[in-house]
C-alpha cells in the first residue's frame, strides 16, 4: 500500500512538472503525427519483395510503424531510469528522496513510471494515426497486452541496470549505448533481422526487442493466436526473469557502494 502510494506520488509529481512546460507537452504529440507522415511517404518508396522473411504479406509502412512505436518503450526504459536518476543526483533531490523511508527500489521504479505511461499514450497515438492506413487485428488485444507487459518488464531490467551504472559511474553508462545501438541495428525496428547476413542476424536473438517486435507484429498485423505466440512470450518471460532481478541487484549494489564512497549526490 505504501509502495503504491509512493508510486502514485511520482506520477503526480511528473505530471505536474511535465504539464508546467505546456508547449513542449503539446509539441511531442505533434511530433508523432509528423513522424508517422514522414514514414508513410518513405514507405511508398520502399518495396520489399513479398517473400522477405518477416515481411511476408505485410506492407513496409505497417512493419516500420510498429517497430518505431515499440522502440519508444526501449528508449523510455533506457533513458528514463538512468536519465532521471542522473537528473535527481544533479538537483540534489535524489539525496532528499533517499532520506525518506521509501526504498531505493521504489524510488528508481517511480522515477521512470511517468515516462512509461507517456510512452504508452504515444504508442496509442502512433497506432491511432497509423490505423488510417493499416488494418490492425484488434482480436489480438489480449496477447498484445501480455507481450507488452513482458516487454516493459524486460526493458525495465535493462533500464534499472543502466541506472545502477549511472549511479556508480556518473557518466558513460555502457548499457544504454550498447543496448540502444544494437537494438536499432539488429532488433528488427526498421528491417527484419532475418534479412541480414545470418551471423549478424543470429545476434539479434539475444535482444529482447527482437522477440517483442516479432510477437507484436504477428499479433497486431496477422492476428496470430495466443497459443502460437506462447514461445515468443516464453522467451520474453525469461528475459524479464533474468534482467529484472539483475537490475534490482545491481542498483542495490550501486546505492551501497555510493553510500560507502559518499558519492551518492556527486555527479
Amino acid at each position, binding site marked *: 500500500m505504501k509502495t503504491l*502510494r509512493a508510486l502514485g*506520488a511520482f506520477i503526480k509529481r511528473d505530471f505536474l512538472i511535465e504539464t508546467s512546460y505546456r508547449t513542449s507537452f503539446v509539441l511531442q504529440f505533434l511530433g508523432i503525427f509528423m513522424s508517422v507522415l514522414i514514414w508513410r511517404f518513405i514507405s511508398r518508396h520502399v518495396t520489399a519483395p513479398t517473400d522477405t522473411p518477416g515481411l511476408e504479406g505485410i506492407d513496409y509502412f505497417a512493419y516500420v510503424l510498429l517497430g518505431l512505436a515499440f522502440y519508444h518503450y526501449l528508449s523510455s526504459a533506457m533513458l528514463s531510469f538512468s536519465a532521471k536518476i542522473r537528473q535527481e543526483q544533479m538537483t540534489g533531490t535524489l*539525496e532528499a528522496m533517499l532520506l525518506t523511508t521509501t526504498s531505493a527500489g521504489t524510488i528508481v521504479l517511480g522515477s521512470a513510471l511517468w515516462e512509461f505511461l507517456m510512452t504508452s499514450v504515444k504508442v496509442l497515438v502512433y497506432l491511432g494515426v497509423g490505423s488510417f492506413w493499416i488494418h490492425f487485428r484488434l482480436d489480438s488485444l489480449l496477447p498484445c497486452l501480455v507481450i507488452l507487459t513482458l516487454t516493459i518488464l524486460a526493458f525495465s531490467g535493462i533500464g534499472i541496470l543502466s541506472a545502477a551504472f549511472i549511479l556508480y559511474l556518473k557518466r558513460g553508462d555502457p548499457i544504454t549505448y550498447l543496448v540502444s545501438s544494437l537494438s536499432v541495428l539488429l532488433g528488427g525496428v526498421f528491417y527484419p533481422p532475418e534479412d541480414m547476413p545470418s551471423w549478424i542476424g543470429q545476434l539479434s536473438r539475444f535482444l529482447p526487442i527482437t522477440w517483442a517486435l516479432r510477437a507484436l507484429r504477428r499479433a497486431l498485423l496477422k492476428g496470430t493466436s495466443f497459443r502460437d505466440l506462447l514461445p515468443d512470450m516464453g522467451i520474453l518471460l525469461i528475459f524479464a526473469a533474468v534482467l529484472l532481478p539483475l537490475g534490482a541487484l545491481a542498483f542495490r549494489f550501486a546505492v551501497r557502494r555510493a553510500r560507502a564512497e559518499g558519492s*551518492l549526490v556527486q555527479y
Partner: protein
Amino acid sequence: MSDAILLERLGKVYVKRRSLREMALRPFARAERVEGLVDVSLAIPRGSIFGLLGPNGAGKTTLLKILSCLILPTCGSARVEGHSVTSDDRPVRRSIGFVTSDERSFYWRLSGEENLLFFARLYGLASAAATRRVRGLLADMELAEVAGRQFMSYSSGMKQRLAICRALLHDPPILCLDEPTRSLDPIAAKHLRQFIARRLHRDGGKTIVLATHNLHEAEEMCGSLAVLDRGRVARAGRLEEITARPGGRDHYLLVLSGGAPPPPDARWTVTVERRDDGTSAIAAEVDRGGPAFSDLLRVLLASGGTIVSCQRREQGLQEVFDLMDETGERR
C-alpha cells in the same frame, strides 16, 4: 536523560577514485585516502540542542550524513535511538529529519506545497494525513501565504524554511540541521534560530543536532557541543566546560584613572596600556577563588587610583578557537 545518539570510535575514510590518466601512469599505486572522521565518540542526550562546530572540511556534514544513512561509516558504530545506521537504516530514517544546506534539493517548477506533499507520500503518509501535516507545517513556518507559488520564486529564507518543513514531515524525534542559517540575512537567521529553540526544542521536545561554523549561533543555541577539526573531536562537553579558562584563572579588564600599576604578584598577571585620555587599561589574569581579586583591587585603590570600570571577560568560542590555534591543539 538517555542518549538519542551514541557514537563510538566512528571513522570515515574517503577513497578517491583514480582518473584514467593516473591509472595509466601509476597502475599499481594505491588510491589516495582522505580521513573524513577519525575516532569520533560522542553521546548526544535526548532533548538537547547539540552543536557540531568546526571550520569547513572539519567533518560536520559527513557526521550528519552518516546519522541520516546517506553515507556508511568505515569503522566504529553510530546508533540513533538505539538503531544502528549501518544495519538498521529504516528505523533510523524514521527517527531523524535532515535539513541539508543544499538549496537545490526541491522541484523548482512545483509549488512549495506540491513539493512537500510529494515527500510526505514518500514518508508513507496517506493523502488526507499528508495534506493536514503539510498545511500545518507551512503555517508553522509562516509559508502558508506562498505555499502555492513555484519553489523557484522563493527567497533563500523561504527555501530554508521549506527544507525544515520537509525534515519534519514524519515528525522525527531528532532533527539534524546542516548550517541552517548559512544563506540567510541576520533577521531571518535570528527568527529561524528562535523557531528552532522555542518551537522545535522547547515546545516540541526534539533533539537538535546543529552543525555550524557560526560561533555566535552555537553559543546562543547549544547547551553542549563538540568542536570538530579535521575529522577529530578536538573538544566536547557543555558550553561552559568548553569555554572555561584553562589554569584556574579569571580574566578582567579594568580601566584605572590615576594611581600606579600593581606590583608583580604570583597570584596575578597584568598587562597595562596607557590611553590618550590619561587612564590605563589593565588586562588582568587573576587566580580564581580566594582573596586574590579583592587584593588586586585594594592595591590599585591604595596607589591613589580610581577604578573607572571593571569587567569580567568570559571566554567565547572564538577565543577557544584562537587558543586552539595558538597552542597547536588544532593540528
